[in-house]
């Protein structure tokens, strides 16, 4: 039916998530970065030009550690979606057909949802996947006749209302409803840059929904090829593929600097790289799939969620719903794309056990007319059905009073009347999904609205302090001995690495059973990770207590993972409590988190962004690219780099193909270069908390 992808624009498709794109022309905005003097900066050299780069702010009270890890996805159907051809009133089919003689979905092409409503078969018979399973499994809800008082039939006023949570009676509210919400989470986001983007919007222009009094808080990605570029290289602009001569030289430098100003690109790339290797779901790979813009957008978002980006709200735009003429040609394609994209997206999330963490909402500025017009289309109407998806729906099914076609007909109504205020849905999302304190709701919503009972699993359902199955730590460290710059460590020990965790000896005496069936080709070494409770001391005696210890695999990227490649999982933590983590390596100076981490299903700690991420004064060394790394040279594992470490090396200073502590640069050979790693660090004291 839809052989030619519609609403597809040049440069928008993610043909292959790994494909390199030269499409370096696109832009994403950081509108909210209007004051920058407060951020720490470190220097690096590019073509001998000194550049200022920002150290990521070591913020802890972020969404990552907020009370839950739920994600909201808003699919904005731009143009005004005709919901009568999406949720077909099959119970009053005669009236429906009478009003829509040429565009009505044929009665024999409907899938009955019950209660007198049906989905068109093209939404449940989609090629790759479909909504039938989601409906049957209770992962889809329909809210009937959603609208608001004094609705506007203008696209722009309608969008403005839906963005700001306004009605047509008073003046539109200031800023966006999501902007107001996110500002309560990040009241000071101008000065304290959140570690990850609070909201990501894939679209061409900033949406008022994310406006705050300090500017727009969303990270706008103008097209998927923006992301292609970011994912391929960790930066937005290609600073190498430039014309020759002095214009190209200047352009390359301008692009490099612009990349340096895009602090979130690294996080997005890291999350994506982690996400794409997580889970077992195989995406459809044929060309038609790639052509479907929404599918590609949601695929990408799935990877960012699986990779633990920690972004709370995503919005994707889908245009083309302003179907004034020959409606069925386009509208059916759009709807089948939604059905296919959303159901594949949830299959992916389900395979990673994340489907109950992600709620999806479709919104559109208005519905369309009850009757068709003379050009086989529909015109601007008012109320419309809204679809919601996800495992977080409490009693999935129908909500709200349905449209009564007989009544509308007898009233000579041109459009559906609204019965459920869309702001009640927003209120439900804020209260039950995003767990906003009820005392804040009226302020955020600009009025009093009612949370819809049974629509979304309330926050109490996930509870506070309830044991969570696994607490996954996404930690990142670099070892000086192996670090080579550009975010990569050398991998040289593949053939000598022990398959059993090597920390069952003094001074560790760790008796874990972690072992490898095979050595990953990006594995650098083993590390030991201890979860600690209590408040660390900076002098005197160690004050924290080890709650749980795990041996982990350190990858070339710096990520510490479990032996199965998943994030390192702890099981003995208490949700909501604060913990520190100690990272130990057999010949580097052990480090300890500077900031506490709140126990939750996914915890993030990146030691590499700043030496200050490790507790104490300069407990990490800074490489010339600005990355922080653990000090090499503690060959005797006593928490101090000193002459005794050199002595340990000099006892046997020439060994080939070994796994031994005196191999300071981790290349499998003991020789002078290992003493060289010790030399510059030779009087470095560790902090008390790394003691045993």
């Amino acid at each position, binding site marked *: 039916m839809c052989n030619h992808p519609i609403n597809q*624009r*040049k*440069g928008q498709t993610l043909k292959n998530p790994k494909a390199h794109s030269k*499409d370096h*022309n*696109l*832009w994403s*905005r*950081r*509108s909210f*970065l*209007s004051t*920058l*003097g407060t*951020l720490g*900066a470190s220097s690096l050299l590019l073509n001998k*030009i*000194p*550049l*200022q*780069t*920002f150290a990521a702010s070591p913020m802890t009270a972020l969404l990552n550690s907020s009370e839950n890890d739920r994600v909201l996805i808003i699919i904005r159907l*731009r*143009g005004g979606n005709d919901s009568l051809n999406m949720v077909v009133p099959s119970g009053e089919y005669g009236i429906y057909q009478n009003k829509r003689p040429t565009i009505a979905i044929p009665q024999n092409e409907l899938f009955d949802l019950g209660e007198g409503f049906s989905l068109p078969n093209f939404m449940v018979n989609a090629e790759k996947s479909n909504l039938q399973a989601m409906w049957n499994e209770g992962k889809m809800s329909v809210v009937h006749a959603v609208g608001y008082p004094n609705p506007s039939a203008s*696209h*722009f006023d309608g*969008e403005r209302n839906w963005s700001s949570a306004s009605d047509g009676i008073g003046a539109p509210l200031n800023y966006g409803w999501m902007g107001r919400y996110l500002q309560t989470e990040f009241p000071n986001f101008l000065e304290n840059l959140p570690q990850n983007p609070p909201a990501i919007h894939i679209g*061409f*222009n900033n949406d008022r929904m994310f406006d705050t009094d300090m500017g727009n808080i969303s990270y706008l990605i*103008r*097209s998927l090829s923006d992301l292609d570029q970011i994912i391929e290289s960790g930066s937005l*602009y290609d600073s190498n593929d430039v*014309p*020759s*001569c*002095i*214009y190209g*030289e*200047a*352009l390359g*430098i*301008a*692009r490099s*600097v*612009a990349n*340096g*100003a895009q602090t979130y690109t690294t996080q997005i790339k890291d999350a994506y790289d982690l996400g794409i290797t997580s889970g077992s779901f195989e995406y459809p790979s044929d060309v038609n799939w790639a052509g479907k813009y929404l599918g590609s957008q949601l695929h990408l978002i799935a990877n960012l969620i699986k990779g633990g980006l920690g972004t709370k709200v995503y919005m994707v735009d889908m*245009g*083309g719903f*302003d179907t*004034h003429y020959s409606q069925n040609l386009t509208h059916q394609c759009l709807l089948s794309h939604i059905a296919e994209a959303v159901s594949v997206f949830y299959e992916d999330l389900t395979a990673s056990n994340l489907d109950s963490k992600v709620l999806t909402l479709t919104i559109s500025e208005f519905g369309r007319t009850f009757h068709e017009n003379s050009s086989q289309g529909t015109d601007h109407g008012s109320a419309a059905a809204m679809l919601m998806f996800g495992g977080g729906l409490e009693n999935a099914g129908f909500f709200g009073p349905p449209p009564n076609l007989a009544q509308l007909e007898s009233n000579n109504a041109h459009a559906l009347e609204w019965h459920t205020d869309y702001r009640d849905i927003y209120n439900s999302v804020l209260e039950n999904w995003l767990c906003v304190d009820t005392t804040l709701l009226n302020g955020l919503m600009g009025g009093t609205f009612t949370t819809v009972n049974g629509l979304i699993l309330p926050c109490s359902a996930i509870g506070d302090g309830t044991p969570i199955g696994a607490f996954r730590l996404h930690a990142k460290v670099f070892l000086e001995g192996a670090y080579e710059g550009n975010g990569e460590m050398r991998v040289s020990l593949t053939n000598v690495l022990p398959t059993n965790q090597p920390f069952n000896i003094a001074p560790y005496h760790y008796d874990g059973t972690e072992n490898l069936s095979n050595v990953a080709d990006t594995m650098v070494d083993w590390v030991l990770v201890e979860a600690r409770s209590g408040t660390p001391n900076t002098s005197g005696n160690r004050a924290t207590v080890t709650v749980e210890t795990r041996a982990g695999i350190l990858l070339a990227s710096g990520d510490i993972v479990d032996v199965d490649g998943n994030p390192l999982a702890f099981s003995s933590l208490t949700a909501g409590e604060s913990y520190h983590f100690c990272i130990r390596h057999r010949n580097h100076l052990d480090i300890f988190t500077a900031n506490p981490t709140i126990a939750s299903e996914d915890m993030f700690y990146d030691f590499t962004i700043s030496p200050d991420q490790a507790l104490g004064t300069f407990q990490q060394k800074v490489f010339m690219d600005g990355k922080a790394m653990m000090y090499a040279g503690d060959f005797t594992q006593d928490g101090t780099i000193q002459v005794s470490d050199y002595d340990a090396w000099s006892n046997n200073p020439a060994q080939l193909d070994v796994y031994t502590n005196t191999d300071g640069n981790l290349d499998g050979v003991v020789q002078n270069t290992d003493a060289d790693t010790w030399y510059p660090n030779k009087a470095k004291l560790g902090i008390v908390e790394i003691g045993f």
Partner: protein
Amino acid sequence: MPNCCTTGNSAPYVPTLTKPWNKKRVQHLYRRVGFGATSQRIENALAMTPEALVDQIVDNAINLPLPPLPDWLGWDYDTYMTANTCHYNGQLTNHTRQYTSAGWLKNIADAENGLRHKMALFWHNHFVTEHTKYGGTHFLYRYYRTLLEHAVGNFKDFCRAIITNEAMLFYLDGQVNKVSNPDDIPNENFAREFYELFTLGPGNYTDDDTAGPINDISETARALSGWAVERYYLIPGHWVYAWWLPPLFSPENHDDGIKTVFGQSSPPNNGINDVDWIVDNLFEQKPNEIAEFICTKIYKWLVHYTEIDNGIIEAMKTIFLDPSTQFEIAPVVRLLLKSEHFFEDCFLGSRVKSPAEFFSSFFVESDTSLLEYPWDTPGPLLTQPQLGNDDCLPDTYCSPGISISVGDPISCPTVNVFENEFWIRHTYIDNCAWDCNQNGQYIFNPPNVGGWDEHYTWLSPSQMLYRWNKLEYQVGRISYNQTSEILAFMENLVGGSVDPAVIASITMHHFIVHPTDEQIAVATQVFIGTAQAVFEEGYWSWDYFDAHQQVKELLTYIVRLPEYQLC
């Protein structure tokens, strides 16, 4: 990356099929001599030959009358202090610096007459002084005036003028270069920079290291001793510099012995004439070195910082040294701007915009009136006394170099001298000046005596974020405050087209030197924005109620491209 450009030569550029006289080249010229041009001015320029256009620009620069002196420059002490205290809350100096900066940018933005002012900005970065060191309104203004007076004049006269300029006297310690008894050692600060940074470049003079205690620098310092701004005793125990008087030569502070500079001896007992002898001697002994140094610097400013063509420098030197135009700046600039070399393809877009260029050129190229009052408090703000006429409180105010207390309340008669001198406040151009300061180009306060390093040093992530955010903000202000003007500009720019691809393409080419096809495709979608159906159904027009929003989005996209950093 040396020699990647076709060399070209100093002969006047004559358009050819492969090097046509087109918008790109007109924009190139206007961006180097000013802050770019509106589309209308580009059209006008295309109707002229390149040679005639350059002649017009350079002639205008030469013939431009100096602005009338501001009234306050002539106020006596009491009037000035009264005005400062009563009407400016002690901030007259700061206000003057701010308005002079903004006015400077505004004058450069006038593309017909901008070259004189832009060359003055060049000389500010050559004969550097820092207001934070010398302080004072009068010194600042007379320094600015000296730059403007000689910007396209005679370089030798310029040097003579700058030696005894008050700001320079304070900045490089001429003020304290006193030899009042034989044991006094002259202060060499100015003498060193005069040769090293202002005229010859390193290595073309002798100093302690190369010649021992008697050398070109120390001898020059002796010759220049004795020039200072006088101190004026206000009341016993309190004094100020007499900023209302020209600097004074004090024979008792001058070393009047014979000096030997560049192997030449000064006349005996030369007194006040030593300063002229220093300049004459320099230009007689070292004309080639001066020509090399100055022509190279002008070339770097107008063409490119690193891609330096020796052939064209030689041609510039020849005309700089020609007896009929000796040491004249304008002929050098004229030759360079007219040359085939200047219009080589490779130089288009090869320069990183300075903050002044980045923030100001957008307004020029979008034909935005720089003197609009888009903010909430329009008009000259400062004509009203900050304090009531009769109850001026005892106050502390800053004068150059010292703070003094006024013991008694002073009366504040109405001073009828606040005519339109401070009208620039709260205009776009005033904001540009402020943004330059914040973005690393603090006009009247370069970072050190070497000035701003220009080019790549303007780029860092923090500076770029500042540029994006500030200019994006300005784009927003324009689209809301000057909606009809910006729409008229856009409609005119694109020839009335309502095709989003055409609109995006023309606009991109207007603001960016080398936009790519992909960028234009994205810009098209950005412009379409939420109006996709409106375009599809064919009823979009420039009267469309959201057109200003679409323009804002398009311009925002453009100014945030890395390419927009280049000109």
